[in-house]
């Protein structure tokens, strides 16, 4: 990292931040620390306060209360060390791509010498060769999105904040962006990104912050999250009636909860005292199985459970 000596452990430190918009209490006393070089996912339903929190981190808006410290100082004085891809994407339609990228890079303090070559290299890298001379309005939506992402990383920032970086991208371009984010982290940047795509967050993040109704409801590392949720469940496909199997598993004290899936699979959340090995043996005694597997942590489920929409996913039988 270019200036890692300026901060010790936290790239972003937020303390008791509140924000109102008129009568709407958008952010309610959020405190968090994002360690340097981490890749942190900001998750939450629409309107949860993710973008507002991100804008406060960027010093685009000021909190009503609380403090925000970015890279050891105020984001206002660190803007050239921060890359930001806003949720609402924007380009100057009539400006040429190379000129736009050059303009943003120069505003961020990149020296003009060699900038043109640098832009060409990046465009090549993002599978956009030869577009530097084209006007932004001539590009497809996906191409424009990649140009916007490039505008946020062209100055090699120490902190990269990406608000919904994958929205609107096809799988090929999504993969390119995914690789780019990983490379930025490998370079040493701290990355915060908000997304609704749980599988992407699961694959990328080493830290998760879940925000709901303006409050932080989860702030943990992926390792801790997995340790909490992994190995405490089984996914079974009984040859017999799934509902009867689920009821039996609960009745025999194998599972605390059992959830039926539309495809006939049954999720068992193991009861206290059960190990995965003992539970596997026990369920085989109830009914013959097509398959039986350890249940891996699913961020989707964690999200739905915490946000309160768990009823939306299949019937749940409580112990």
């Amino acid at each position, binding site marked *: 990292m270019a200036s890692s000596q300026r901060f010790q452990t936290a790239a972003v430190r937020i303390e008791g931040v509140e924000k109102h918009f008129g009568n709407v209490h958008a952010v309610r006393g959020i405190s968090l620390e994002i360690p340097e070089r981490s890749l942190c996912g900001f998750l939450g339903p629409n309107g949860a306060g993710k973008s507002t929190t991100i804008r406060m981190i960027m010093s685009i*808006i000021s909190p009503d209360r609380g403090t925000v410290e970015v890279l050891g100082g105020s984001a206002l004085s660190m803007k*050239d060390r921060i890359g930001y891809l*806003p949720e609402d994407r924007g380009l*100057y339609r009539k400006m040429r791509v190379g000129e736009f990228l050059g303009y*943003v890079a120069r*505003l961020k303090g990149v*020296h003009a010498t060699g900038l043109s070559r640098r832009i060409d290299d*990046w465009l090549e890298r993002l599978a956009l060769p030869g577009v530097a001379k084209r006007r932004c309005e001539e590009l497809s939506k996906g191409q424009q999105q990649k140009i916007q992402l490039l505008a946020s990383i062209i100055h090699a920032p120490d902190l990269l904040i990406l608000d919904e970086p994958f929205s609107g991208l096809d799988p090929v371009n999504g993969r390119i962006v995914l690789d780019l984010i990983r490379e930025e982290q490998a370079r*040493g940047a701290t990355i915060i990104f908000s997304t609704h795509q749980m599988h992407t967050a699961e694959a990328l993040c080493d830290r998760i912050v879940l925000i709901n109704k303006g409050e932080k409801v989860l702030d943990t590392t992926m390792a801790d999250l997995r340790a909490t949720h992994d190995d405490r469940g089984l996914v079974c496909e009984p040859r017999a009636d799934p509902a009867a199997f689920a009821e039996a598993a609960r009745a025999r004290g194998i599972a605390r909860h059992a959830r039926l899936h539309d495809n006939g699979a049954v999720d068992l959340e193991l009861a206290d005292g059960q190990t995965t090995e003992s539970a596997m043996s026990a369920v085989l005694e109830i009914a013959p199985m097509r398959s039986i597997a350890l249940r891996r942590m699913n961020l989707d489920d964690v999200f739905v459970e915490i946000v309160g929409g768990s009823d939306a996913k299949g019937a749940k039988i409580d112990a």
Partner: protein
Amino acid sequence: MPNSPQRPRPSSFTRISMVAWREFRHTALTKGFIFGAIVVPILMFGLIALMPLLLSDKTPPLVGTVVVADPSGTILPRAKAILEKPASMQEVAQDLAEELSTTPKDTASQMGAMSKLSDLNPAPVQVEWRSERDFNAVESIKAEVRDGTAIAAATIQPDALDPSKPATALELFIPSSLSPKHVRQLQRAFRQALEDERIARSGVDAQLLERLARAPEPATTRISPQGSEAEERTELRMIVPGAFMMLLWITIFTSANYLLTTTIEEKSNKVMEVLLAATSPMELLAGKIFGYALVSTVMLVMYGGLGIAGLAAGTMLDIVPIEHLVYFLLCFVMAYFMVASMMAAVGSAVSDLREAQSLVGPVMMLLIIPLVLWAPIIENPNGLLATIMSFVPPASPFVLILRLTAATEPIPLWQTLLALTWGFACAYGMVWIAARIFRVGVLMQGKPPTPRELLRWAMVR
């Protein structure tokens, strides 16, 4: 992947300069601007210069027979000579002046008088003249006009040569199809013929009479308090303050309008947040205001330079003293910051031009006052309206420049100093308020704010 560059943090001034240059480059160095702000005015000036050529009269010639019932037999040869000789510019000007001084002051009458200008370029004449000595034949010659045998018939009463007789002593009958221009040519020829014949019969020397009737205009010299004397050019002295004010209006409103539309565009394009990730709202606003100040300056130098060059070519530079130029520059800076800050604030607060118009509308009403009332303000620069308006922003700089450059009577020095100081204080205040509205407005979406909400934004921490 490119390596992370070690770089110094750009100063606030550098970022403001970059934003300003981008705004200038993408406004003033575009085909649209060069065409709209440079080529079109040049074309308009060219068009005005070429107007007489473009409007050159292609009226068909006056062809046909003119019957003259004139017992004296003296009018026809005079009328024929006059009709076949085009009027001189001097004669037309004299006619026009007489006409304007005697016609009622309604628009239609004045338009009629102005139409005399077309006499400068009369239609060709291919007329056959026929004299009718028998005055009693008037009904038969009127019948000739009716059936199209003759294009006109004039009857001159036997006593028409008596100056005491009424105008009906000379009558002209024309068909309904005869063009107004041909009618005026015939009217002029017969009137002039009758005048000439009356003068000839009186025994007065016609040329002497003309010289006697044309008294010279008074040679007017304006004497300054310092004692210098200069030939008075009243019309120019009326026009110059108006020209100063119009120059202020055009240069400022053109670029302020660009500022408004680009701010709205950046907001609706969502590029605003990208910029705010690199600059502070204040840097962005300052960059935009200075960028469009450059655009205004380019227009000012271009149009003002053309005006000064025109005056220099006509050796009339003395009507624009140097202190007027200094006043103009002060009013330009003051007016620009007032109008630009207003447009930037409105642009940041709305999502499209229609919403902007409803917010800018009331202020524009105030700004139109100098445009509408420039003539009375110049006539009476120390009048109550002029004095009050020169202290009411954002109209004040426009009224002030009219007052300061008006030729009639100087405005008191204390008023000049107070109006300038107050004006710059207001401009500063407007920029301050605009900055606070801009900071909040650029990130707002949805319905446009009410004026009360704008005020609340200005007060927000």
